[in-house]
């Protein structure tokens, strides 16, 4: 084999390995590294039944309750289309808030309540000072207000 051909073979082999690695990694991510299922996927029975998995979505506003025993927490995870009720015993992360993102790991009970073993907060990529956040909130409310007035 001429050196030029040898180099070409090496490059082709390299590209093949590259493609193979890409396919392998993509496949691995797709099948095993689905980090969480959305409430819609849970409703469509796409999540593994009888096994531990993660659900992710927003904590529905107004759904957070603490039970009388003081440690059990109940809330609902929503993706605005479907809702999954969650029960959890333990400490919530600092950024756990109603209306914010959450990822919970556990099992779906037969009663349809997701029994969480671990609750993580999934925050968004927005960073701003508190005053700016308040201003955004106010603007949001006033838009809603004016929409209401318009409807009436």
């Amino acid at each position, binding site marked *: 084999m001429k050196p030029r051909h040898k180099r070409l073979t090496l490059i082709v082999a390299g590209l093949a390995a590259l493609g193979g690695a890409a396919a392998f990694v993509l496949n691995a991510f797709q099948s095993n590294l689905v980090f969480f299922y959305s409430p819609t996927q849970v409703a469509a029975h796409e999540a593994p039944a009888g096994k531990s998995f993660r659900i992710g979505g927003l904590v529905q506003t107004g759904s957070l309750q603490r039970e009388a025993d003081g440690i059990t927490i109940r809330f609902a995870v929503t993706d605005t289309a479907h809702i999954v009720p969650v029960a959890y015993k333990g400490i919530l992360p600092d950024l756990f808030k109603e209306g914010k993102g959450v990822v919970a790991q556990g099992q779906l009970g037969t009663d349809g309540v997701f029994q969480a073993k671990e609750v993580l907060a999934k*925050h968004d990529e927005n960073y701003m000072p508190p005053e700016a956040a*308040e201003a955004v909130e106010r603007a949001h409310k006033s838009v809603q207000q004016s929409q209401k007035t318009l409807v009436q």
Partner: protein
Amino acid sequence: MELNIWRFASPQVIYPIAGRMVPVFMALAALFTLAGLYIAFFVAPTDFQQGESYRIIFIHVPAAWMSMLIYLVMAFWCAVGMIMNTRLSFMMALALAPTGAFMTFIALWTGALWGKPTWGTWWVWDARLTSELILLFLYVGFMSLHAAIDDVRRADRAAGLLALVGVVNVPIIYFSVQWWNTLHQGASVSLTRAPSMASTMLAGMLVMTIAAWMYGIAMSLMRLRTIVLEREADSDWVQELFASPACGAKA
């Protein structure tokens, strides 16, 4: 005339030029770091959700960006070396690898320290975190494979091939937050839309990023000079450089 560009592909020409550039880039790195840290702690306001913990962003994001960029540049030099057969290209790649690995480590470490108070966990196996960990393995693999093979030319080619195969991981890291469900949030700064950060926070992050660039350039040029000496020890110009004690001390 046409050979003028190729002159710069010679280690002998690059060695003194790099020597003059190192202090300049180190000074710039120090300057930008000081300015960046000032903005990060005294100008940028508290975040509305995360409070002061978000200030980790000023090292986390520049380090993470650098970890990916250095890998791309390293793979580029490996490709050049494999196609053009220039020995300096592989030296460039080797000079970049340790800095890339250190940046990856910083990104992972600061990420863990940021994840604990905000998400509630040090580590999860989501696509972003996992692919960044794979990047660290690729850097370490590149360096150890090169060190494992005695024949330098063969070592260059083998490690170069590994670097090129590993390039596929960089877009995976970058787009993981869009392609899959991850715990890691999306990008605050991207080419396609306005950044979702207050302007002083963004300024701090960008100044720290420039500082990281300057450091990366200074550090890799420094290491390049050492690698050149290690690998060209038998050449006439290195022998001459070290023949007179004065020059040897200066080098």
